[in-house]
């Protein structure tokens, strides 16, 4: 969720205009079958992540190749997300602060979370998540007075194809979550009762984030209109800037930026975890020095994209042309092959 609620409105309105908000939730729901496929593989291969499962199902060679792709994609994307921390702060409220400080401050926190382990990371997320929800809800409700309901009509006047293309641009968001699930699988409980609980959590996570992102896009289209929403890079911050409670509370986008940073830290940490797990699984590289090395690579990637517009188009490129095709094909192929092999074995017995 960390990076989705800032650009989501601009992305969907550029594809689907006034109807763009409608595609957010369906695109997120695409994550449910994928999440359930991942959990089905968990019950079939307990205590193994999907890289290990790939080696078992596809054989060592293909499994390793998938593992390398997984590390490269998640590592590159994690570095780009780190770059986004600098981009958004420089762009909005702190243009004079050296961009390296944003990178350094964030990577230290991310490294600390990764080094402390998955439990500390989970607790950190547990603390930050309600703040994110609260900030979003406040931002949206305080914008109600500025909405123009008429801008949503006519519904579907351009047909459904623009929505389909918009959905393709939102689907990578949920696939990022699936990539993290692929790695964390080895740490998840495997008895049937708890897998049932995990299934429910997949539904809950997808719907919660999907609905929130949908409301973010919905509100922005209502407040700015579809054309202006497309023009704004980080619409939620502009919305935050317009929040006014009398003259006492006004222009509070800095508070939203703080909350957003928390969300982004969670997301970068998730991708640091995926790279670290990947290195351990595929190349047997583990320990503190490799975690530091990955952090250094993240910093290097971030420094390679200090120009904001290039960074945004690169994130969009990785989302649309790497994460989405890689995850959809890999998980579907892995699940299908594992099922097929399982069926064959049963018949063989």
């Amino acid at each position: 969720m960390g990076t989705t609620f800032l650009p989501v409105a601009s992305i969907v309105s550029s594809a689907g205009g006034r109807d763009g908000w409608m595609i957010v939730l369906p695109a997120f729901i695409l994550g449910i079958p994928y999440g359930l496929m991942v959990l089905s593989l968990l019950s079939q291969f307990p205590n193994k992540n999907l890289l290990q499962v790939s080696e078992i199902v596809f054989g060592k060679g293909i499994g390793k190749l998938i593992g390398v792709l997984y590390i490269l994609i998640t590592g590159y994307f994690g570095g780009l997300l780190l770059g986004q921390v600098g981009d958004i702060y420089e762009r909005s409220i702190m243009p004079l602060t050296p961009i390296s400080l944003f990178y350094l401050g964030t990577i230290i926190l991310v490294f600390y979370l990764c080094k402390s382990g998955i439990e500390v990371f989970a607790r950190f997320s547990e603390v930050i998540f309600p703040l994110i929800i609260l900030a979003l809800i406040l931002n949206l409700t305080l914008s109600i007075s500025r909405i123009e309901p008429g801008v949503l009509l006519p519904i579907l006047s351009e047909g459904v194809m623009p929505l389909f293309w918009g959905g393709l641009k939102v689907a990578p968001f949920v696939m990022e979550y699936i990539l993290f699930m692929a790695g964390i699988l080895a740490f998840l409980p495997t008895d049937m009762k708890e897998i049932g609980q995990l299934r429910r959590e997949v539904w809950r996570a997808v719907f919660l984030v999907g609905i929130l992102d949908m409301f973010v896009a919905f509100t922005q289209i209502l407040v700015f209109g579809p054309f202006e929403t497309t023009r704004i890079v980080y619409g939620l911050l502009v919305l935050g800037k317009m929040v006014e409670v009398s003259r006492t509370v006004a222009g509070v986008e800095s508070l939203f930026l703080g909350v957003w940073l928390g969300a982004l830290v969670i997301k970068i940490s998730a991708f640091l975890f995926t790279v670290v797990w990947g290195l351990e699984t595929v190349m047997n590289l583990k320990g503190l020095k490799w975690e530091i090395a990955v952090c250094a690579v993240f910093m290097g990637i971030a420094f390679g994209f200090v120009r904001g517009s290039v960074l945004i188009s690169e994130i969009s490129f990785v989302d649309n042309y790497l994460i989405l095709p890689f995850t959809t094909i890999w998980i579907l192929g892995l699940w299908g092959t594992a099922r097929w092999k399982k069926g064959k074995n049963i018949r063989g017995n």
Partner: protein
Amino acid sequence: MRRKITLIIPTILLLLLLPGCWNRRELNTMAIVEAVGVDRANDGQIVVSLQILKPSAIKSSTSEKASGTKSVWVVTSKGETVFDAIRNASLQTDRKAYFSHNTVYVLSEELARNGISDELDLFSRDSEFRKLTYVFITRRKAEDIIRSDYEQEKIPAQAIEKLAKVTYAASKVPKVQLIDLLKNFASKTNDSIVPGIDIIQEDNKNPNEESLKLDGTAILKRDRMVGWFNEKETRGVLWVLGKVKSGIIDIATPGNESKKSGIEIIRADSNVVPELVDGNLIMTINVRLDGNLGEEMGSSDLVKPESFDEIEKQIDTDIKEEISSAVSKAQNWDVDIFKFAPDVHRKYPREWPELERNWREEFRKIQINIIVDAKLHWSGYLKKPVQPKNTEGEVAQ
């Protein structure tokens, strides 16, 4: 323990570096801008006038006039772009201009006639500027408005902001914020209205005493100003947009036509229903109004049903005239300031792509049908106006 200390000390050192003091802005280093005026000089350069707050003068409890010090300071500077002009202002001020508290943009008519989207780009792009700032156009130089005084407020910019906020009371001038203009500029069909602002000097007052007044409405085709609407025409536009919230409608007093009576608008709303008949667009504008007999000049007894019916008919006629004159002028200028296009799009989504392609042409041909449903409810605390009598007890003529 040693390991922990070796971790904690660098962390503390980093924390000292990390807070990002690079961007600190101390209050005494900021020139807090309350209003911005933009003109274009004869040499083509942008002229920016900044109304800057003087905190020391604000502190004083005595009035500005009594203390002899003004609460604001106006700096004018030139540049190739708006941003350049603003930064050039720092060559005259000892503080850097800070715009987060800015409440007003004033643009000159001369500038607006050549388009304002370029000049507004900075205000929508930079994070320091806010999109809820009120926008005005003046027949004078914008600098004159920024330099003007206002009797009731220490900070003239705040007076202008309050003037914008109170426009609902008369509904003769629109209230327009930067975000409204940006939304219209981004749309393919909408045109814009912007309130006019001027300086007035009353005849019986000291020549140095002047005051600000909202006056007329500038009409923008895309981002270029094409002309002015007077108060009645402006209210015609506001009726259609459903933005009349209050105000007074002056009508000839029934039974005493040489005199006027004032009808107070208590609440009003409107909706526009488009119809496509044989390829021609007909817009039915429905206006509903609840009003009071707020004032009666004359001696007629108006507080009876038949008089109320007559007044309601007059209100209908007046509103229809206001709307017709506004629509007809807008059609002559090819400006869809009524947002008819989104209404047509909503009702006829299939036909819309064809209509949108020639929208200016279509707009010019639109026929309007105005239906006003005015309801007069109350007459204040009086039935009949007072009728002065002479010593014989007869009504004085």
